[in-house]
């Protein structure tokens, strides 16, 4: 089973929920798919054991074979390869999508591919939580290819929890599309509701089962509750606006770590999700 923890809005508590759930449900795998700013390990404290370079294929041009026909640059819909007639041909890393199309259309077989590093994938472990995180290099235009690579390391025999990037764009799609269930973490504010609706457009399109965790549930308004009821979305957990949770969070300690009660609540949340995904 793969369970993604997502939200439209940033800062709602995805990482708090994902890490607490992982600790309470272990043995599991936890993937931090927020590759632009991975922070799950600030709460998990896994010891990193291995680091792998992540790379994408990138065109390399053999200028001895190139006759400047421009078929490659005509083909590329993103203008990722440039032909300066009689001078040189080069691909632009910020734009190239690594589709390999230029290589295919080149009549001279002048284009090959070589790996271009886009970031890192780190592996670690703590308290029977196998941890994988991606870290994209600064300046990369798209996080999605690295997020896709993280899912190569999932294990069919192990349940997986995914800490997703915020937003409702490509990175969120990529980090929820393999999931059996998506937990949407939100907060009872107009922003929380607005961005929850955005996130739901994605999960609905993907045909995912979803449930809500409402963080800071005792502040704001009750529009989220009404919305959930009207749309038959189960509310799986409410987390109060609590000084103890905030203080521990500020020290890098998740609720499941400092409180036996919260650990049990997250264990029950896990069982609830299991029962929704595979009804007995």
């Amino acid at each position, binding site marked *: 089973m793969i369970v993604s923890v997502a939200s439209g809005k940033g800062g709602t508590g995805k990482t708090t929920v994902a890490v607490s759930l992982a600790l309470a449900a272990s043995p599991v795998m936890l993937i931090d798919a927020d590759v632009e700013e991975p922070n799950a390990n600030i709460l998990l404290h896994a010891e990193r054991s291995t680091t792998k370079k992540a790379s994408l294929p990138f065109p390399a041009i053999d200028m001895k074979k190139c006759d400047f026909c421009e078929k490659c640059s005509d083909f590329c819909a993103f*203008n990722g390869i440039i032909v300066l007639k009689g001078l040189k041909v080069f691909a632009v890393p*910020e734009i190239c999508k690594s589709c390999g199309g230029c290589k295919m259309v080149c009549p001279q077989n002048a284009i090959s591919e070589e790996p271009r590093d886009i970031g890192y994938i780190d592996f670690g472990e703590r308290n029977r939580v196998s941890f994988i995180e991606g870290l994209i290099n600064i300046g990369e235009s798209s996080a999605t290819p690295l997020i896709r690579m993280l899912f190569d390391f999932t294990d069919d025999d192990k349940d997986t929890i995914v800490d997703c990037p915020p937003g409702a764009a*490509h990175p969120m799609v990529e980090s929820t599309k393999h999931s059996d269930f998506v937990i949407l973490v939100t907060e009872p504010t107009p922003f929380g509701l607005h961005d929850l609706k955005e996130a739901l457009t994605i999960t609905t399109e993907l045909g995912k089962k979803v449930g809500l965790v409402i963080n800071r549930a005792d502040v704001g308004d009750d529009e989220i509750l009404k919305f959930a009821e009207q749309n038959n979305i189960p509310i799986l957990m409410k987390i109060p606006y609590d000084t103890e949770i905030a203080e521990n969070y500020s020290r890098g300690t998740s609720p499941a770590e400092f409180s036996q009660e919260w650990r049990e609540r997250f264990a029950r949340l896990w069982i609830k999700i299991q029962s929704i995904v595979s009804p007995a």
Partner: protein
Amino acid sequence: MLFAIASAGSEMSSSLDPRFGRAAGFAIIDSDSLKIIDYIVNPNIAAGGGAGISTAQMLANRGVRAVIAGAVGPNAFGVLSSANIAMYSTAGLSNLQDAIDAFKSGKLEAIQSPGATGHPGGGMGAGSGMGRF
């Protein structure tokens, strides 16, 4: 030699276009006669991405040796530099006649470094931070 000026049209009175990659078009000027010999409507106005570099490629392959434009983004700057195409700024100039006069009198200011960065184009939405917060 030929040079290109980003402009809204092909008349001497046509206003200059402050954009490069997504400029409406380019007047091609012959430096000997100082006449507008051609006007290229820019096919990259609505490009999904890479408008600047594609426009730079087009002008390089048209054989221009200099470009007069508002600002040139980093990718386009790289391509134009690779093709040894000089870049001059339209700052303070309003129409094609102004730009050609400034060229003639050697008053054009060189663009020394890339200006505005690229913009994701029509509906592509691929910016790395899109949809965050």
